């Protein structure tokens, strides 16, 4: 029997393929209306936080250092009004196997895949997550396929993504590379069907539960080393899983730090554009993923995404590409820490946010990522220049994504710009209620949780939307 492999036919089999490939029946969490049982889905991983800590230990993941960035703090204080300039800390997640916090996200999935008898795992990712899945699969003795959106139609690859391909291959994975386009998902579905492998989705409950240990560790380590909780935790934000997992872990530790999301501003660039694909110097941690995934989390590769950042975010700020490159260079020059730029998005934001805070306060950036050929400020800026992007020193306010990258003339020009969270909450409520006329009380309570507001806020918003 030959199956219909056309785009429409394969996409129509999506739910059936996913059910087999994640080993979870997502339909049991549905209410039939807008609401679904998010916490019920998270609980169904069957693993407690302690279980996950132990699983990650088996993969040599976690317990990464928190480093106080004293010189970067000194630089922030030089730029801040007297008495301002909180102490800046960074959790050195680059020291995890495969070089980023994504190892946490992969470990529980791969542990589960192994336990359920899958022979391999497939992951759709152009980022560090691929390396994380490849590394944990290597440790678990599973086969691994990483599917990347890598090239534009001229066959020119994003250097950062090409490096990720190299790393995945080095860790024993098969790497499948595609040109630009969301139909990557179609190719993944075909491969899942063909191989019977586990879908190591970034957005499954296993993935997000794996990040909870990061937030939990921050609280524990801070209490141990500094006898206090951090005042602010900043998370680089793209698909929202990093922030969601970290915030949930902090909450499980009873830590009430303010949670700030930070993304690189790529306003005006279309993520599915072949022309613009190589005009951006960030392939993740940017608004092109950050905004749509926050306001419509279920656009991911599982029926219900476990990454729901609007539930936890207190503030959302953007920084410009040039500012992140600047802070990455500053981190190397002042702290002796050479890291990949995308992971420093939150650090650029924290550098500015610290200047709004008092000197005795603390702000934690919850990740770093590895750096290497291709994914380092030098090759990325060099690639930008070769692609006709203007790279210069100046005022970052003048940066136009896809046209220029402006390294701040002075660090006091670095800014974190607030995104209107109410506007995003409105978008989320609009997206979630489209096509539903009679909302239940459960729906209203669900939307309040989804937007970190209350029933009155949701009812008022619905009134305004209709």
């Amino acid at each position: 029997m030959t199956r219909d492999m056309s785009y429409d036919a394969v996409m129509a089999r999506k739910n059936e393929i996913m059910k087999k490939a994640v080993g979870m029946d997502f339909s049991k969490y549905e209410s039939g209306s807008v609401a679904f049982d998010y916490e019920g889905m998270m609980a169904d991983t069957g693993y407690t936080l302690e279980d996950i800590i132990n699983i990650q230990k088996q993969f040599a993941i976690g317990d990464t250092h928190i480093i106080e960035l004293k010189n970067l703090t000194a630089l922030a204080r030089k730029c801040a009004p007297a008495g301002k300039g909180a102490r800046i800390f960074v959790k050195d997640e680059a020291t995890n196997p495969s070089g980023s916090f994504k190892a946490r996200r992969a470990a529980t999935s791969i542990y589960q895949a192994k336990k359920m008898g899958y022979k391999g795992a497939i992951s759709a990712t152009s980022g560090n997550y691929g390396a994380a899945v490849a590394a944990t699969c290597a440790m678990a003795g599973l086969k691994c396929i990483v599917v990347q959106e890598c090239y534009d139609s001229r066959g020119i690859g994003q250097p950062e993504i090409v490096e990720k391909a190299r790393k995945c291959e080095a860790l024993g994975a098969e790497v499948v590379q595609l040109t630009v386009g969301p139909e990557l998902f179609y190719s993944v579905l075909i491969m899942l069907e063909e191989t019977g492998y586990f879908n190591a989705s970034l957005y499954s409950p296993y993935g997000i539960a794996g990040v909870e240990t990061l937030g939990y560790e921050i609280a524990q380590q801070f209490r141990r080393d500094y006898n206090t909780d951090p005042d602010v935790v900043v998370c680089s934000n793209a698909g929202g899983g990093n922030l969601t997992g970290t915030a949930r872990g902090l909450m499980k530790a009873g830590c009430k730090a303010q949670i700030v999301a930070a993304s690189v501003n790529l306003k005006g660039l279309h993520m599915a554009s072949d022309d613009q694909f190589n005009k951006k110097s960030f392939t993740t941690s940017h608004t092109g993923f950050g905004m749509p995934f926050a306001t419509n989390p279920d656009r991911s590769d599982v029926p219900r995404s476990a990454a729901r950042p609007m539930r936890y975010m207190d503030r959302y700020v953007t920084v410009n590409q040039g500012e992140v490159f600047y802070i990455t260079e500053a981190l190397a020059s002042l702290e002796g820490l050479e890291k990949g730029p995308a992971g420093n998005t939150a650090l650029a934001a924290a550098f500015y946010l610290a200047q709004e805070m008092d000197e005795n306060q603390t702000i934690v950036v919850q990740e770093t990522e590895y750096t290497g050929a291709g994914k380092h400020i030098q090759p990325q800026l060099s690639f930008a220049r070769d692609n006709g992007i203007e790279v210069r020193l100046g005022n970052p306010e003048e940066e136009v994504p896809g046209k220029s990258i402006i390294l701040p003339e002075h660090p006091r020009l670095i800014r974190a710009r607030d995104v209107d969270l109410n506007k995003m909450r409105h978008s989320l409520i609009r997206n979630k209620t489209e096509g539903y006329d009679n909302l239940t009380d459960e729906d209203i309570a669900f939307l309040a949780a989804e937007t970190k507001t209350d029933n009155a806020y949701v009812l008022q918003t619905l009134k305004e939307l209709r």
Partner: protein
Amino acid sequence: MSKKNDYVQIHRTVLTPDLRSKNLPEETHTKPLEMWVKGYLQEESANVGDSVTVITRTGRVAQGTLCDEAPHFEHSWGKLIPELLHVGDQVREIVFGGEE
């Protein structure tokens, strides 16, 4: 020329423009969705441009056009960006040198 079991790269068109998703920007929609895969050549011998079959490292069978007989990576550390030297010097000067 490649021989059987040589590790090569193949290329294939997954979707021609007319079969692609409807929700794409024009400049993407007019291009095919293309795929590159590496694996061990199954033919006795083949040259670039030949239609071939490979077995990938996970054991999948994949077909396409042989495009690279010795696939390797060439991404690098890029060319010198003098502005980065300036940034490094500047932050050290401000923190350790006294700005004035």
